């Protein structure tokens, strides 16, 4: 990478993310309180350093302890689910794009069907069916339903990489399929996949909190979504016990915002077309003819996870190009 210039956007996102990670990883060590232990009465106000830093929730448990462990849980679920979804999407997309033909048709049809069936529906149905929802089963369920948009984008990119000469060279020199895919195709997709992974993780985190608020969250752990679930179910908003719901809300917002920002700045980094330049403005330059800081179609992150991914990096000309 020649001139890798990290934009301010990247640094802001990285700092925010670092703070969140710090809280998740170090937090439980600092806050030496068991989130399930009763440390006070119902909705006690925040008081001083220690377990009551953010007061107590509806079961008299320490909010700060729950917050810290909850952040950790949310992040773990998000990372797991995001990883699973990325791996599946990558696999399906590469195989479909590279093989073409019948394999491609089958995989693409499968992808398209699952693209249209709303993820949230399937996830809710699966979660309802599960008796004991552990972090891992939830992550698994979310992972196996969130891959279609990634598969579609990867397939498109793989198809274009497939037509390049070095692939023919590799095949003629007798390399077997897995090694071609790994060494000749994957490097071209890597930058996009990194971006997509970030998006998957944030989608999974949001999806988990959506599930938790419906009552389908992990049964043996506390997550940010579960904190909100209890906050709503026990009317903390109504009674004004802000310490019960504001911290998880703020934390979720920070996580979601910083991940989205990170993904957007990575997009700028990897896709040179999108780089905003400091073009010195000379007097008299006609602003109407300005070259834009172009950004392709933006990803859509919703309560149901990612519904549309970022535009794949195109270095093939648009239709009807030269």
């Amino acid at each position, binding site marked *: 990478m020649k001139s890798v210039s990290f934009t301010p956007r990247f640094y802001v996102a990285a700092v925010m993310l670092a703070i969140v990670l710090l809280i998740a990883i170090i937090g439980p060590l600092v806050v030496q309180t068991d989130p399930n232990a009763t440390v006070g009465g119902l909705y006690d106000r925040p008081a001083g350093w220690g377990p009551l830093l953010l007061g107590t929730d509806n079961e008299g448990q320490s909010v700060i302890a729950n917050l810290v462990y909850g952040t950790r849980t949310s992040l773990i679920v998000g990372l797991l689910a995001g990883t699973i979804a990325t791996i599946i999407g990558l696999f399906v997309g590469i195989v479909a794009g590279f093989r073409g033909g019948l394999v491609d048709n089958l995989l693409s049809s499968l992808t398209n069907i699952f693209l249209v069936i709303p993820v949230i529906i399937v996830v809710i149905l699966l979660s309802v069916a599960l008796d004991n929802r552990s972090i891992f089963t939830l992550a698994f369920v979310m992972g196996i339903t969130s891959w279609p948009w990634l598969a579609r984008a990867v397939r498109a990119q793989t198809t274009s990489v497939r037509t390049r000469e070095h692939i023919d060279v590799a095949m003629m020199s007798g390399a077997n399929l897995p090694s071609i895919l790994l060494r000749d195709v994957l490097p071209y997709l890597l930058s996009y996949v990194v971006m997509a992974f970030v998006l998957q993780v944030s989608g999974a985190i949001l999806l988990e909190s959506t599930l938790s608020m419906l009552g389908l969250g992990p049964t043996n752990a506390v997550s940010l979504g579960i904190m909100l679930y209890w906050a709503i179910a026990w009317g903390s908003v109504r009674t004004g016990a802000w310490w019960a719901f504001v911290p998880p809300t703020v934390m979720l917002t920070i996580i979601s915002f910083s991940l989205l920002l990170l993904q957007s700045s990575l997009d700028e980094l990897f896709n040179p077309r999108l780089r905003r330049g400091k073009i010195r403005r000379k007097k008299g*330059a006609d602003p109407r003819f300005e070259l834009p800081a172009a950004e392709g179609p933006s990803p859509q992150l919703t309560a149901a996870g990612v519904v549309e991914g970022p535009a794949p990096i195109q270095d093939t000309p648009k239709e009807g190009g030269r």
Partner: protein
Amino acid sequence: MTNLLDAANIRGVYYTPTGEEVVGVDNVSIQMAEGEVLGLAGESGSGKSTLGSIISLTARPPLIVEHGSLAVDGKVQDLSDMASIPRVWRGAVVSMLPQGAMNSVSPTMRIRDLVFDVMRAHDGKIKKDEALDRARDRLVTLGLPTRALDAYPHQLSGGMKQRVVTIISTLLNPRLLIADEPTSALDVSSQKALIEMLLEMLEKEIMSGVIFVTHDLPVLRTVATRIAVMYQGKVVESGPTNTIVDDPEHPYTRALLSSVLTPEPKYAKIRIEGMRAFDRESFKAPEVKH
């Protein structure tokens, strides 16, 4: 007699996102008389397209015109202040025919809509029927099917699109048409058709001059009356076509011509030497004007 075109001291610079300056056109002046086809020849990066875009008043950031003046029929405009140049100059005085007409028309509109909008931008009172009639006449005069008007861009073939866009560029009878590599994306027969159309339009005085930017020297042989050869942002040699082709003086022009693969009998006997036979330093010799 006033020249059709008098472009003086043009300097155009590209500003890269990292802040560097790349000089595209380095203090170039060219003149044209009525009825001329001036060929701007050169290799990639010579500045010919940049010069073309500046003269057609379509230069946009990151290309900045630092100084230069453009006089058409004696009327002068200051090129360093693009915003002050009257909008109606574009299309009616100077007009561009862009490289690769593929995406020149918005994919969601019909040709006739663009025709109407262009005409209306210069004559606010024109009625749609009138505008389309004029366009239809133009198409018929130049031997193109009138149904092209009703088509969407994706419904036209490459060659047809290029010719239709040529018509659109000359709808307002501009004084000067700047064609940027119009034949580069076409097959040989489409190239011929386009060139014939341009010459026919010139003869019918639809426009009074053409600047033909290309890297394809053999094409210039058939269409240009004068040629200006560019190298690294400067004009190194200019003169009548025959002089340039048969009797080039500047080392770069010589190098360029010696690398042309043309099955013309005259050249078949000459061994093609290519650029490597020449010392690149010699290309920095001063301009030769014929």
